[in-house]
């Protein structure tokens, strides 16, 4: 599979839930510290290079993006200036973004579309809050403010449209129900900041967390005193963790150690694959929902790789 060169440093990559050959990439200039941002929408070709079908520019870095689950052209992005912007691929560039939602008071670090109810999405920010948005409202529906430090990631439960989890720099993972005033569970999951979390797609009680302490832990929310398992193998902070949409026990992760790792948390030698194709921090990884075993990753080396599990991402 070929790679795609972005003009800025990669921050996140997401496969479209509608088209098996489409993905979106969030990028930021100057490592996201100062400068502009750009969102690329890419199409994979069975033979030939990856083509860009659209790109949207922003005045500040883009830290994350997510595809809508009820409109194949709709894309949501988390912008470093505290705004959440919605983009419509069907509209010309001049009419985009179709919406800019500015309620967070600091950088927005993650966005996630509700895959069950499909009419809402979450944004988490460095202002310690998570906001719930619906597509029919110009303002957020609710704000979840309990974390005592930046919230790096807020992810919907893939089987329950009212439940989501949030990972924060206050070293806790919190489980929320949008109908409850406060979080329903608090897991002091790591001794250091938690940068990412993701739900198991086949067991809605299992959740994985990735932390600055270089480890990934899998938790069962029914008995969260001890983790189900601890996955060690990364040599620096783990930036993102993702459960496979196809295999119950498969986990993908990327890290500041510049590698993308694959884990099977149910076997003893959990590390089942390590890809070191990036030459800078690997900060974005995703697995295709529509094509089993198709991976995408991006990093600060300004490259987006798409590859089939077991093959070399760099192979032409």
């Amino acid at each position, binding site marked *: 599979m070929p790679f795609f060169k972005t003009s800025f440093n990669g921050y996140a990559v997401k496969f479209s839930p509608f088209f098996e050959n489409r993905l979106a990439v969030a990028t930021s200039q100057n490592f996201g510290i*100062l400068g502009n941002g750009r969102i690329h929408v890419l199409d994979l070709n069975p033979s030939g290079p990856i083509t860009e079908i659209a790109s949207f520019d922003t005045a500040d870095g883009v830290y994350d993006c997510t595809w809508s689950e009820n409109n194949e052209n709709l894309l949501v992005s988390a912008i470093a200036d505290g705004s959440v912007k919605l983009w419509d691929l069907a509209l010309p560039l001049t009419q985009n973004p179709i919406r800019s939602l500015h*309620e967070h008071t600091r950088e927005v670090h993650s966005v996630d579309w509700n895959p069950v109810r499909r009419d809402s999405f979450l944004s988490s920010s460095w202002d310690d809050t998570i906001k719930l948005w619906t597509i029919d409202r110009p303002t957020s529906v609710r704000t979840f403010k309990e974390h005592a430090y930046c919230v790096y990631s807020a992810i919907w439960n893939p089987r329950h449209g009212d439940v989501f989890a949030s990972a924060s720099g206050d070293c806790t993972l919190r489980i929320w129900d949008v109908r409850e005033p406060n979080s329903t569970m608090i897991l002091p999951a790591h001794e250091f900041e938690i940068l990412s979390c993701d739900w198991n797609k086949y067991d*809605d009680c299992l959740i994985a967390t990735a932390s600055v302490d270089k480890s990934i832990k899998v938790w069962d929310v029914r008995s969260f005193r001890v983790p189900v398992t601890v996955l060690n193998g990364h040599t620096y902070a783990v930036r993102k963790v993702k459960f496979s949409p196809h295999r119950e026990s498969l986990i993908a992760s990327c890290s500041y150690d510049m590698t993308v790792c694959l884990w099977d948390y149910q076997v003893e030698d959990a590390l089942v694959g390590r890809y070191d194709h990036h030459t800078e921090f690997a900060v974005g990884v995703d697995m295709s*929902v529509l094509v*089993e075993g198709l991976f995408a990753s991006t990093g600060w080396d300004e490259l987006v790789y798409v590859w089939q599990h077991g093959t070399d991402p760099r192979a032409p």
Partner: protein
Amino acid sequence: MSSSTGNGPPPKPWEGARASSGPAPFKPPSPGSTSDVVEASGTAKPGEIVNTPQRNPSATGTALARPVPTRPWEQNYGSSYGVNAGYGSGMGYNSGYGSGTLGSYGGYGSSYGGGMYGNSMYRGGYGSSGMYGGSGMYGGSGMYGGGLGGPMTGGYGMGMGGPYGEQDPNNPYGAPPSPPGFWLSALRVMHGVVTFFGRVAMLIDQNTQAFHLFMSALLQLFDRSGMLYGELARFVFRLLGIRTKSRKVHPEGPHGPGHPSATHGHNHIEGPKAAPSGSWDNVWSDDAVRGN
């Protein structure tokens, strides 16, 4: 949303699979749209803006097990970073600042304090005489104190973006002149600086080990460049004919290497065996000259 299809994506691979390995501790899902569900639960609070400094985690009844670190952009850095810390609060990043924040103004270095207070001056319209004239205007702490005491204190809480051009409705002295371009642009630059430091700090936060790596790489680079320049300087000196290294090995005597005195000295260094004896006769070529 011009092209809303209303159709969902293809079914997810996990749909239809067994839901859970046991009873989940979640309430059963509610029917209806997300906004309806949230509103029915009574937890909806549309468009709430949360300001980080006002937020009180203990108020939620979910105190943490361990102390939470200060946010990187809120830390009170040493005096050399005063511009950063001070600016963050002065800027009213998050509009509502309490008295605690105002107290932190005391820590400003005078050189930076000027700009900050100067701008609050513009808003408040205090110091009616010589608005931008006197040097005391921008630097004077007395000036600042006045501003704080007055009814304009609220002005400090204003956000960074935009309000500087606006008129203060509470201004008893009439509309203040619009802020000079210089200060405005300086403020914008400073805002960028604050954002920069905040994000760098966050990155360091997220990746402590990599920061260590970065610093050691930087130090190594300095080290190497030092060596490089050292070599370069030596090369230039050589070109100019200047010897930078003194030859300390085997210092030669005034008469040259072949002269007996040099050899004699050497012999002397050899130690107590210097006393002439038969066995040494052939060892030193100039023994004969010395006449034994």
